[in-house]
């Protein structure tokens, strides 16, 4: 038994051609178990719109096809979702089509594909790399829960504060929190905290907490941000106390 579902897809041929931005509608067969990703794969074979026009296949991103890697993140009815994790029948609104759009905060490549390199750039700005480790250190297994980001871009998209040149976002901050907690990352912990206190860092978090809601890996991103905020404040107080009386140290004052 299969039903028909209409996909309404936002398309654009290239970033340089905003005039090609348009919605196109396609009918796809939907069986229980089908995901948005499997529907997009099926659509590749016959990209014919509802009004019978044969068009170029819809460009979309998909890698593992197994709910593992986060490559296929997009907007489903305005909400950030992984295409291979989202049920096609479950995504149908009460009325009207299922609307698919590319992530809106990353540079568009074509149709549903965006350029995710700014996510890596955000990590780089915060110094989220590891030096050569010197001695054996056992990471507490409890850290594994914050150690599984797949750079899917969901938290960057959903956060009201993030932007390409502004707030680095929850994933990058979580990465700093993780690396600072690791034995192998301790040597640069202070430098990372300094970066986190700089422009685009932790002060830009508006505490909307949507990052936690959208993370497909269930990473407690907001806890990471709070933890980092504590460490940053401590570091700030420490720097101050080196120079003047601790009484002058008032976190939050510019």
């Amino acid at each position, binding site marked *: 038994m299969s039903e028909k579902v209409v996909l309404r897809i936002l398309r654009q041929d290239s970033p340089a051609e905003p005039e090609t931005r348009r919605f196109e509608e396609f009918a796809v067969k939907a069986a229980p178990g089908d995901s948005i*990703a499997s529907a997009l794969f099926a659509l590749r074979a016959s990209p014919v719109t509802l009004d019978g026009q044969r068009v170029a296949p819809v*460009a979309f991103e998909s890698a593992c096809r197994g709910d593992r890697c986060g490559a296929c993140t997009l907007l489903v009815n305005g909400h950030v979702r992984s295409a291979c994790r989202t049920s096609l029948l479950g995504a149908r609104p009460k009325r009207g089509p299922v609307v698919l759009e590319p992530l809106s905060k990353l540079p568009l490549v*074509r149709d549903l594909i965006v350029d995710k390199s700014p996510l890596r750039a955000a990590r780089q700005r915060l110094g989220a790399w590891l030096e050569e*480790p010197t001695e054996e250190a056992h990471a507490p297994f409890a850290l594994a829960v914050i150690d599984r980001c797949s750079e899917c871009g969901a938290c960057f998209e959903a956060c009201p504060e993030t932007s390409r040149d502004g707030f680095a976002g929850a994933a990058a901050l979580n990465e700093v929190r993780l690396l600072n907690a690791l034995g192998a990352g301790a040597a640069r912990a202070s430098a990372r905290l300094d970066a986190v206190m700089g422009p685009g860092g932790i002060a830009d978090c508006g505490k909307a907490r949507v990052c936690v809601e959208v993370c497909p890996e269930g990473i407690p991103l907001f806890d990471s941000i709070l933890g980092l905020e504590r460490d940053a404040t401590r570091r700030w107080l420490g720097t101050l106390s080196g120079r003047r009386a601790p009484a002058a140290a008032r976190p939050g004052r510019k």
Partner: protein
Amino acid sequence: MSAPTLVIGEGIAGQAAALALAERGIQVLVLAERPAEHSESVSRHDGLDAALGDDDSPERHLEDLLAAAGEAARPVLAPLTEAAPALVDALCRLDVPFERARNGELCLVKLPGSSRARSVHASCETARHVSRRLAARLLRHEVEGRLERRIGWRVIDLVRDGEGRVCGAVAQCFATGEIRGFAATGTCLATGGHAGLFMADTHAPAGLGAMTGIAVRHGAELVAPGSVSHHPFCYRAGGFVRRLPRRIAALGAEPEAGLLDLSKLDRAPLRAAAGSALEAYARATGADPYAEPIAVETMPDRTLGGLEITPEHATSVAGLFAIGGVVAGYAGSPLTAALSTAKPLSEAMQRYAEEHGAPEERALDAVVKRVERRTEELLGREGDESVLEIARELRRQPSRDELDALVARFEEAGLGDGSPRANGALSLAWELEGAFVLARRIAEAP
């Protein structure tokens, strides 16, 4: 001017190779279709194998692997089993969160086919944790200018100089369609196996082995390209094939008549070993994997055959090296295979770079022109034959004659998309061109 060392592919093997090279102070260029975090190796559940137990030794580890891979694999497997214990140490120093007992000792799991308990895991996310640590190390080299990554670039062809040595590659940027030549002093393939050629009727994530085919076209020798290992815990969800971690076998999971019943097993160790994979199963099917039987199939998983290499990781083409799943003979954990061989690979590539000066860049231009012409031709075709359908049939292991017919149909196929930008059909056409070469070798193998 000297050219960088080129690594093609950014799964764990590519990351390990790039890191080992950068740590020797060698300038590295990585060309990869996908970033490591979306690579096939990161989506796997395997842990690492190493002779770490008191009752174990690298020799015993080697004997177990040879039983699976055959005696001929001894030269590639012996250094691997020898290096594996130190590799686990190095990963511990990088704080990979391996499971440990209360006393801090690593937990060793005995997998089917192993005579000893020698697998270490971080739940079923070992590959992801390892890859993330390697990425954090690589980012430092990138910041310091020793490493350049070009992600979203598909290598269309290798380039050889007048003396037959590989002196670079021509690649196409998926996002923009730009075609460019990259000169290289030494090139390493880290492009994975070709198990996709054995997966019929599914949107398998596994590759079709295009890069292996391209290497073969340049004269690389293959070993047993039709040899595949199977995975006992595959299930279908929404048209896709997914896997449950092999390690649940160590907890007593055993399919009976196609059904895997986990309900009689202890829930806590099961959740610790395979929690995220079982959650994904529950999301995809709506069923409770801890309570209801799971319909599983045994399916092709990894290719055991692939490129033949010397103990120095050189293929039979001068200047072309290989690491990881693209290489023939690796049995056991693919993570161990990729990671424990990066150091000897980097030593060999460093020697190669010292012995051979800057490559001839002229050779690149001719190949760039040829690839540009071919791109134009592929994009201009308007045939009714579909590359998707041809890919589907290629996965059904065609005979030689069927393959000839398939190649002829491919030459008539239209892409249905004339744009060079983010063109999935064009990308698949390139994949097919390489895969045909490999599929022919498989069809011709005795």
